[in-house]
């Protein structure tokens, strides 16, 4: 039909599909390229800061919960022999996992934060300390961390405990200033101290606020 030849047609659209890239916002124009890197860096650091705080906060809470539970158990005059298998395994798993995840996770977060901070040109603020382990018949794997951004506090390490109440805590763990300014974490382990995992907090001696944590795995010298 004659009318059909001149039928209305529509124009081709600018595109026929959505933009699916991961950073594409829905609604509104994309931001300029110049603004993007600075905003990304800020978000990155904020995100990691929050994640580190999260991790520290929950590890601290976990330690406190464990101590409260342990205290209740002590008041009830329970020895580890009275615990059922589940509870003993629970305590052991909890502390080991806290150490593993806390250390690994927070380690990782700290490293990433330093990398992120160095990429954005700012100075990382994580203080560093050397480590010294003293023991005649024991080896030790020590991990410790202090919250980034914390400066000028006087760290102290209260006795650090094992999940097993029968094992005495490690009490001789402290910070020293060597050569006037270099901090060193000194871990002294009695030669007959029971092997195991010991876990505790690094505390500001003035405010008593936890500012980090420490984990020590004590290994018998003749073990691989």
């Amino acid at each position: 039909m004659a009318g059909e030849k001149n039928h209305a047609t529509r124009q081709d659209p600018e595109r026929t599909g959505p933009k699916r890239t991961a950073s594409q916002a829905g609604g509104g124009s994309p931001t300029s390229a110049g603004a993007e890197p600075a905003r990304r860096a800020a978000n990155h650091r904020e995100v990691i800061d929050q994640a580190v705080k999260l991790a520290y906060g929950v590890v601290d809470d976990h330690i406190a919960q464990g101590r409260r539970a342990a205290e209740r158990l002590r008041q009830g005059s329970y020895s580890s022999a009275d615990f059922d298998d589940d509870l003993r395994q629970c305590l052991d798993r909890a502390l080991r996992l806290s150490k593993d995840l806390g250390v690994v996770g927070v380690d990782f977060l700290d490293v990433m934060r330093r990398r992120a901070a160095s990429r954005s040109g700012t100075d990382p603020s994580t203080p560093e300390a050397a480590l010294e382990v003293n023991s005649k018949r024991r080896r030790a794997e020590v991990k410790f961390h202090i919250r980034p951004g914390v400066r000028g506090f006087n760290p102290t390490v209260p006795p650090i405990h094992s999940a097993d109440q029968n094992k005495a805590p490690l009490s001789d763990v402290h910070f020293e200033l060597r050569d006037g300014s270099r901090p060193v974490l000194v871990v002294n382990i009695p030669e007959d101290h029971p092997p195991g995992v010991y876990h505790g907090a690094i505390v500001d001696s003035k405010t008593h606020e936890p500012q980090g944590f420490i984990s020590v795995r004590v290994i018998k010298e003749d073990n691989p």
Partner: protein
Amino acid sequence: MGRSRPIKVAVIGGGCAAMAAAFELTRPEHKGRFRLTVYQTGWRLGGKGASGRGPAGRIEEHGLHIWLGYYENAFKLLRECYNELGGGARGGRREDWRDAFFPDPHIAISEPQRSGAGWAHLTAHFPPADGLPGDPPAGDLFSLRTYVIRSAILLRTLLVGVETINPSDRKERGVDELASPGAIVEKAAFLLRYGFLATAAAAVEALAVVEAGLKMGSNLPAGVILRLVEAVAANVRARIENWVATDDDVRRRWEIVDLVLAVLVGVVRFGLLADPRGLDAINHFDCREWLRLNGASERALNSAFLRGLYDLVFAYEGGDPSRPRLAAGDALRGGFRMFYTYRGAFFWKMRRGMGDVVFAPLYEVLRRRGVRFKFFHRLENVRLSDPGAEEGGKRAYVQALEFSVQAKVREGRDYRPLIAVRGRPCWPSGPDYAQLENGAALEAEARDFESHWERTNAGARTLRVTRDFDFIVLGVGLGAIPHVCKEFIARDTRWRKMANSVKTVATQAFQLWLSEDLQQLGWEPPPVTLSAFVKPFDTWSDMGQVVPAEDWRRPPQTIAYFCGALHEPDEVQTVGEDEYHAASREKVRANALAFLDREVRHLWPKAADAESGFRWELLVDATDQQSRRTTPRRRSRAPDQSRFDSQFWVANVNPTDRYTQSIPGSAEHRISPLDNTYDNLTVAGDWTSCGLNLGCVEAAVMSGRLAAHALSGSPALEDIVGYDHP
């Protein structure tokens, strides 16, 4: 193209997509450039969102319709419609959109008890979110980076907000008693377990957040990061897996953590943060399959959470519960939008039927704007141009539209479709025969104008290009495409693949009007929308809020809507087998009776018991209300199952009533409204490539807005909220 006359647009269908397209094309800023005529089967608009009014003005719906707080385009459309309508609704009662919707923060899922006796129901309260749906977009809402970060926040909310409702649990959990050594040990163990879990969750959250940060610009090898994440995830899972099996509360919380873990691992492993295809890159996987690949445990994969997700979108191929299929990318996209971008409230429930709240206002606004409506017009065929006309590089086009005229309106007038119930415009559950030629005879026949298999007609009508239309918005349901677009499917490989790949599923639903309220029925928590319950009616929503909108002399205490997928034969029934619809209805009735007798007691313990079954006297019969009696009629015998016949149920087996699914591997075959292969036709519906690609109101409205853009260049694609989305 110079044009002295308006462009004539034939809009076929009356659902959300077609109405959204019509609303966009008739905006005042177009200055009358488009003249629209809507062609609709039967007597009412709405498509799958249609509702009617039955005896006692009771609302009778196609199914359960609840809007989600992320339906930005749908709420924008609706709010603009209500603004334009102002106080002009029939009856002169001004109504704001917030009079028609109310926020609902509660959602519940169900899981079978481990003991095998009964079900436990978990309710969650989602806190209010800033803003209201349909407000102007607020910043960079839709990035995978944002979703990954918010995963940590949501995880905490879920861990805090989940509460198990289980009568035996409620009795056991009481005041913290430390009077006995056993209680002390148990409490300490619980604290340590929860602390342990929280530590693991927080550490995982932190790692996942770092993941997102790294992907934004880290120069670390991705393999290193992935191994670390996987090592942590494996470590956590190995330690917790056996432990959580002994503690239901920890287990449920861990299932959520497990699923979120798998999502985050998968986002990294599949490189989705950098893939230009975004979440479409994993659409060939089933959602469960993809989560399993990324380390989710079988326990989490079979959890109520995941079952609830599948139930929400009827993700069972052929309606068969043993064939759950949901494209992973579409599932994640919908999940992220649902959980992370809702505004105001998680759910928004309507205070009347969807037809009353959405389609009546739209109809009135569009009429005011000059849109014409042709009811009782069923599309039979979309005729394409002859291939010879496409020589010389010209595109194919639609030459004609062929309709059956189901009934004719007296004196050639326009059919007036709305009625008033309690002063509000509504759609009736059947046509107004008084307006139709041979109306009395039609009424006596009880012809079902909405049935695909009802083919008795009053006439036929063919619309021709240029004479009767310039452009077409094909807004029919996907199920109609094989019937009305045969030429497209025969000539066009893409349409053939679409018709074969993009699936629909029949659904079943029933509504109960009850003489007792939820507490009397034995449901003690707040009114909820609940999913993951027993098949076939895995979803229940309390809809007591619509009682005041109905017209009862003795109102029921509450209303319950149940729905689920309907398992049916693989072959869709063809025209002529008109007994199929009736047989399907009978099947749904039988399913509902069995469900009420055997299963509903797990929701409403006082409504039924294992020995005597459902208390049929709970059901309120609307016919009782139509007499002048002030008390219910005394019946000669105790109510039995036949009382159910006074309620309302549907078998949505009509091709156009079927729910659009998101089957793995199907999204790539969807056709976009922007596709210009046929240069005077665009498509609109939740079955099109609309950005969201899920069966829902929001996808339909997005598609309608895209269709309008295809014809007019407006709205801008960037203004279709969520269209550009990872």
